[in-house]
């Protein structure tokens, strides 16, 4: 019998429209970027926006020299004022005001004031061993890392300045000695081209792999549940009297994959728009767009092949089971194929050309995720990309073929769940 593409289209159309028209689709599509955006942007925004009045810290000086030095030291900001980091840095500096304690103030009295909330905190400066400055911070709230960082840099600036002075060095030389070294990562690409590295080099491959993982899990399970629903509501009998099992399975996979692609396209569009509109000066963090066209093409290719690969398995599982609980046991081994590359994510990114990493990026079960991680870390040789995609395509064909057979027999079975040997026999026989 030939495949009736009209039937396949009818099934695709139903699956697509039924899902896209649901309120839950609209809600997840709208809410997810809002939540993600909030998670990414909020901490930065909160760091910039001053919350409440600055923390006032009394400086109690027992050394004679350190008090004025700490008060005078104002380390130069390390980031340009226009950048997000610069804004956060200035905001953190502004969030702290240092005030010398009144002469002859009693430490115990200050401690009582801190305890009563009259004073925010006190910085106690004492002479330590070997002319070392010993500093103690006393406050109710000692869990503000920003404040510690600011105090820390001021204290160190004061100590270095004091030492250089006692050594009798020329202040201009002293200034030179204080200069810090900034380590700048530079990424070298094929042909010796270089570009500035950024945190994005690390985040993008992980994000892409995560996108694939989430799509396959979310929509693969949706396929499984769809099959299960058709089976448990018995509607499958009417459908199969008009449609071949293969047509039904294909239509389902393509229809639900289209829903996933639509949803991710919307998110991608929103992300691109945000990048171009450049609120909070995101672009300054990056050297060009974060996702290269090749990565995007690979993302789509690996998604499509990986999705068919896994959703065929999910469809077959749905066809073999009659309840949600039953599917759980069968789902676990399938999900392993997706989880393992994530468990191995850090070693993959650290040594992306190790033998086992190359193997995982070629092996169809793990290749969608491992290869995307690798492409972010190194320039993967073209032959490996080709081999990986080719093997995945072959693997997908084989899995879809076997799954269609299991699906064909399983979809009409009721009652007892078949055993693995039985399922394997269906593959050989049908």
């Amino acid at each position, binding site marked *: 019998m030939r495949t009736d593409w*009209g*039937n396949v289209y009818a099934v695709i159309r*139903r699956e697509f429209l039924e899902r896209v028209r649901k309120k839950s689709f609209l809600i997840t599509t709208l809410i997810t970027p809002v939540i993600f955006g909030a998670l990414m942007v909020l901490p930065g925004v909160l760091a910039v926006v001053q919350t409440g009045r600055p923390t006032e810290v009394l400086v109690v000086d027992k050394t004679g020299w350190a008090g004025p030095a700490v008060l005078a030291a104002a380390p130069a900001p390390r980031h340009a004022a226009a950048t997000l980091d610069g804004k956060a840095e200035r905001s953190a500096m502004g969030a702290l005001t240092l005030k010398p304690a009144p002469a002859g103030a009693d430490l115990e009295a200050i401690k009582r004031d801190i305890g009563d909330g009259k004073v925010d905190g006190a910085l106690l400066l004492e002479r330590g061993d070997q002319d070392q400055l010993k500093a103690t911070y006393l406050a109710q709230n000692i869990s503000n890392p920003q404040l510690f960082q600011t105090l820390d840099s001021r204290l160190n600036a004061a100590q270095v300045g004091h030492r250089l002075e006692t050594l009798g060095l020329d202040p201009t030389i002293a200034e030179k000695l204080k200069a810090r070294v900034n380590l700048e990562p530079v990424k070298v690409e094929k042909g010796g081209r270089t570009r500035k590295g950024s945190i994005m080099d690390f985040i993008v491959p992980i994000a892409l792999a995560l996108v694939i993982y989430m799509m396959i899990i979310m929509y693969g399970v949706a396929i499984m549940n769809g099959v299960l629903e058709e089976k448990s509501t*018995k509607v499958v*009998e*009417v459908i*199969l*009297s*008009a449609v071949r099992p293969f047509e039904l399975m294909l239509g389902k996979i393509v229809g639900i994959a289209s829903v996933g692609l639509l949803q991710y396209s919307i998110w991608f569009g929103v992300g691109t728009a945000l990048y171009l509109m450049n609120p909070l000066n995101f672009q300054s963090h990056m050297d060009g767009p974060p996702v290269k066209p090749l990565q995007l093409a690979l993302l789509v290719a690996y998604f499509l092949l990986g999705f068919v690969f896994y959703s065929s398995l999910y469809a077959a599982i749905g066809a073999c089971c009659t309840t949600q609980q039953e599917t759980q046991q069968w789902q676990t081994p399938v999900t392993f194929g997706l989880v393992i590359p994530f468990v191995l994510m850090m070693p993959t990114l650290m040594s992306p050309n190790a033998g086992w990493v190359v193997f995982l990026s070629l092996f169809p079960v793990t290749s969608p995720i491992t290869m995307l991680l690798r492409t972010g870390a190194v320039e993967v040789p073209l032959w490996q990309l080709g081999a990986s995609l080719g093997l995945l395509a072959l693997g997908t064909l084989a899995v879809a073929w076997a799954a269609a057979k299991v699906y064909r027999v399983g979809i009409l079975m009721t009652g007892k769940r078949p055993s693995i040997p039985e399922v394997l026999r269906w593959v050989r026989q049908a």
Partner: protein
Amino acid sequence: MHALSYRGVAKSFGQVKAVKPLELDIPGGGIFGLLGPNGAGKSTLIRMTMGIYLPDAGDITVLGMPRTQVASAMLGYLPEERGLYAKMKVGELLRFFGCLRGLHAAEASRRAAEGLRRVGLEKWEQNKVDELSKGMQQKVQLLVALQHRPKIAILDEPFSGLDPVNAELFMELLEEILQEGTTVVLSTHQMEQVEKLCHSIALINQGEVVLQGDVAKIRRDYGARAVKVEFSDGASLTTETFADIAEQSLIHPNEARFFLRPAAHAGKVLKRLLDMGVKVSRFEEAQASMHDIFVKVVTGGNAHAN
């Protein structure tokens, strides 16, 4: 030309022979009864006819065409286990199945609206299936089977669970498609319906056709040889009591039916009953009902209902 022909059609599931090599012709037009006890192989035969199962052996032809070449538009199916997409709107659902049965989108929409009007559900087109009552869902399910005007409609227990009003409506719909020349294959356990609706039947038992032909003729053949008795004080009666006279005896506490052996005479039954002191209140030579014939053929002789 036959609506459906089965030549040596067989299907096994593992060791179980669900349908043994089977020969059957279903004539075109009218209602054909496909009868048989539960597990006889009817559903398997129907599923092979609908292309859900492929036969292990043999050929099925539909209106003279091999089954594999038959467009799904020619067939309609109401399975015994009813099922619809619960979350789909009624109109959408009918359009979807219309498209699967070869209708174009516009035509499917028109048929859906027309069908819903015909069964009085036009106001429910935009409602989801699970908002409908069970009876309404039955109507929608029947529309799914018939809306594309199939040449052959296979209906499995179409009247089960229907109230008398809806049963009448279903009957009218059947009449309508029969007028249009559709052949209906009716699978049912309700023998009164078979007597009322079917012109001919096939009785399937243990994967084989054990009886087939014209309903009137079958009843005549069996009927001339049946006796129906009503009585009291019949506790001592057993099947063995009548083994020499009747091929089969169906003995209930206050009533019995006997299928006479070819040479036996009805009077012998009455005489024996009276001899045994049974108080007979009614005695008649009856035409066998399809119910009796079904039980007789399936049990293959003696059935005792005590």
